[in-house]
């Protein structure tokens, strides 16, 4: 049994300790926002915030997050209460197929909490681990910069 905080509430999961965190969250906890892309820390689709850091969840054993704080894209915001990043992604229509977006949002959220006013180059560097095949990169960068602006204007 592994207990941790998921999007602000305590959950406990009865799965083998080495089950990948991504699989546990998608299949056991039925949160489908985090995506499988490679299972090898090479694409970023599975990223979650673990104690505030953007981390790959596809290779992360479940028991390694015991007692920790895990946030998935669903924990960033909802259609009723969107995170500024989610608002900005919609405003910029940042996404083609959208498969990469949860990982992008998580990476961007980690960036903005460490560096609330990044410039464009810093955004690109922060997102460089996240792959997008549809070529939505520039819109994603614009969306992150827009969210940063909004966070600055509404403290």
């Amino acid at each position, binding site marked *: 049994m592994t207990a941790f905080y998921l999007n602000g509430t305590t959950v406990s999961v009865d799965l083998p300790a080495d089950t990948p965190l991504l699989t546990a969250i998608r299949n056991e906890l039925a949160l489908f926002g985090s995506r499988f892309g490679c299972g090898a820390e090479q694409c970023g689709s599975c990223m979650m915030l673990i104690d505030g850091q953007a981390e790959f969840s596809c290779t992360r054993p479940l028991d390694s997050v015991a007692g920790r704080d895990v946030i998935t894209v669903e924990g960033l915001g909802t259609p009723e209460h969107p995170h500024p990043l989610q608002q900005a992604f919609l405003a910029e*229509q940042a996404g*083609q197929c959208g498969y990469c977006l949860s990982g992008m949002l998580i990476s961007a959220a980690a960036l903005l909490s460490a560096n609330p006013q990044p410039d464009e180059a810093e955004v690109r560097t922060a997102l460089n681990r996240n792959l997008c095949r549809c070529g939505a990169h520039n819109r994603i960068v614009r969306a992150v910069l827009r969210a940063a602006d909004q966070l600055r204007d509404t403290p």
Partner: protein
Amino acid sequence: MTAAAPKPALPGSLNANRLLSQWIGFDKSGRVSIRPGKVEIGQGIVTALAQIAADELDVAFERIDMQPATTATSPNEGVTSGSRSVTESGMALRHACAAARQIFLSVTAQRTGVPLDRIEVVDGRFIGPSGEIGSYWADADTGLLACEAPAKVKIKSAAERSIAGTTVARIDLPDKVFGLPRFIHDLRLPGMIFARVVRPATRGARLVEAPEAPAGCSLVIDGNFVAVAADTEATADAAATKLAARIRWDERDTLPEQTEMRAFLRASPAEKLTLADQPGRAAPTQTLRTQFYRPYLSHASIGVCCAVARFADDRLEVWSHSQSIFLLRKDLARVLGLPIEAVTVHHREGAGCYGHNGADDVALDASLVARAHPGSPVRLQWSRADELGWSPFSSAMLVEIEAGVDAKGDLVDWKHEVFSNGHLLRPGNFDSPSLLAAAELATPFEAPIAQNPPLASGGGADRNAFPIYRTGGLTLDIHRLLDMPIRVSSLRGLGAMVNVLAIEATMDELAATAGRDPVEYRLTHLDDQRAKDVIEAVVAMAGPRPAAPPDGYGRGLAFARYKGTSAYCAVVAEIEAEEQVRVRRLWIAADAGEVINPEGAAHQIEGGAVQACSFALKEAVTFDRRGITSNAWETYQILRFEDVPQVMTQLLPRPDLPPVGVGECATGPTVAAIANAIHDALGVRPRTMPFTADNLSLDMGNAP
């Protein structure tokens, strides 16, 4: 007996699917269901189709519910590909919705006595001179749409449209930004079991002996097809990994030498098709010979292929991200020996799809496992290695051009020769099913060899081989390989990428050799005003070269009209060549006729251009004599954020011209513009894709 009069032609896919109720449904509660047979593959088509429908019906965009396609009820619209969706589905829906509006209004006019021309439609309500006299919702249940679309309907003019032609937010994007279940990967059904396939160690390998099932798993083995199923995904994954390490395969060399691909393409048995054979207009004073090679490319979707299948009572139900659910149904029925009526395929969205990837193949994998577990829904998802190692690729290609010019440097003759596998291996098109596992079974189906789609649908290896320029003479020979050592099918633009690269790099070189400006040189050889307009537009966008360019700076231009019949697109690329080539900025001007969703179209063009930078600079499928070695992101690299150029896009306003798709128009011109910019920067003519430092020094060495 007299033959029935032929039915009048209807626009797009309506011609073959004439029943209005198949496309449109109204609901008492004020909702409108639109049911296209085309599917969302990440390109935003569903949003554009909703815009067309809302406009023609005169209802608010928000009232439209787009229904996912299913073979059970949707119109059969063939394949969602080739930038044809707006033409085929959009124009069908425009006509069908105008017809529906007309039918509802005439019934209302008859019933109320209010003349037709005094009735206005306001968000679905019918308003007469003295108020509301009806609505789509009031008559929702009256069966008015249970009829074939009439041939004559009044379609709105460009000026009358208020939704199509404006920027509308993508319908599907909120779910994806909030992480709500929407993809095929997120589908869960009661009692679902999870499966993985264990593909042969290398191509053509044979199973030596059947392995034992790992604990808690069931094995499905049929010939060389091996899959494993379990109650949880983690168990199935772990079992597949264990099996892959344990199973013994009898392997052999079946692939060509990667370093000898040019010779392989030239020497393989092939079917030769001569598409043009006109003698030159004069004897050339000078002849330029060029040759371009592109390796096999992968779709490299960020998501892996996935399908859900349930087999019960001799019926098969499948959920799939296939681009062609009806054709997939046909091949599934053939492989499983079922009547076609016993198979239903429902579409669910997958990750971005740029052509015929493994979506259809994984659907057969899942169906084979489902047949062995009657009653249980089976979810089968590929691994990243399956995805990059076994999805159909885009064929390696060799293109050779011989261009003859007169004393001024103007073209008098042009010969273009293509050596390539076919670019079409989609299911349902061949005597034998083309799905991957069909050829792996104990009683295998013969694996078909890729064909080229007919020229009328844009061709395959020959796509964009016809130069748009006035060339004088023209000889066009296409060699389609009759062996297919590496399984290939359709990828964005098919042969257009290499043909456009070849033509546009050759035009650039001809201009330079004649000491002429590359823009002037192209314009001189063009008759089509729309072509000239996009070239001039992109030149204006890019502006003059910087006064003091950095070291390694280069600029190049290229142009094509996709398929010769679709969108016009001109690109200027700005690069910096240091150790590696970096694309800094791209300017793109395009003319796609009427544009349904301008921002959506610009986004698609931009996405295609960024992907083209990746193809141009980074990508190559690698292999040894036995198997594919580029089966992870480490070994199949794509462009990342830090290398993505700025992209400026402009769509020329042409609201009165027929709309064409834009998804593929930028691919060829972007690759070619980069090649021309590399020459500008380094003086070398890139002939070998991708344009890496190694390949450029190879091309430098081979220069005459």
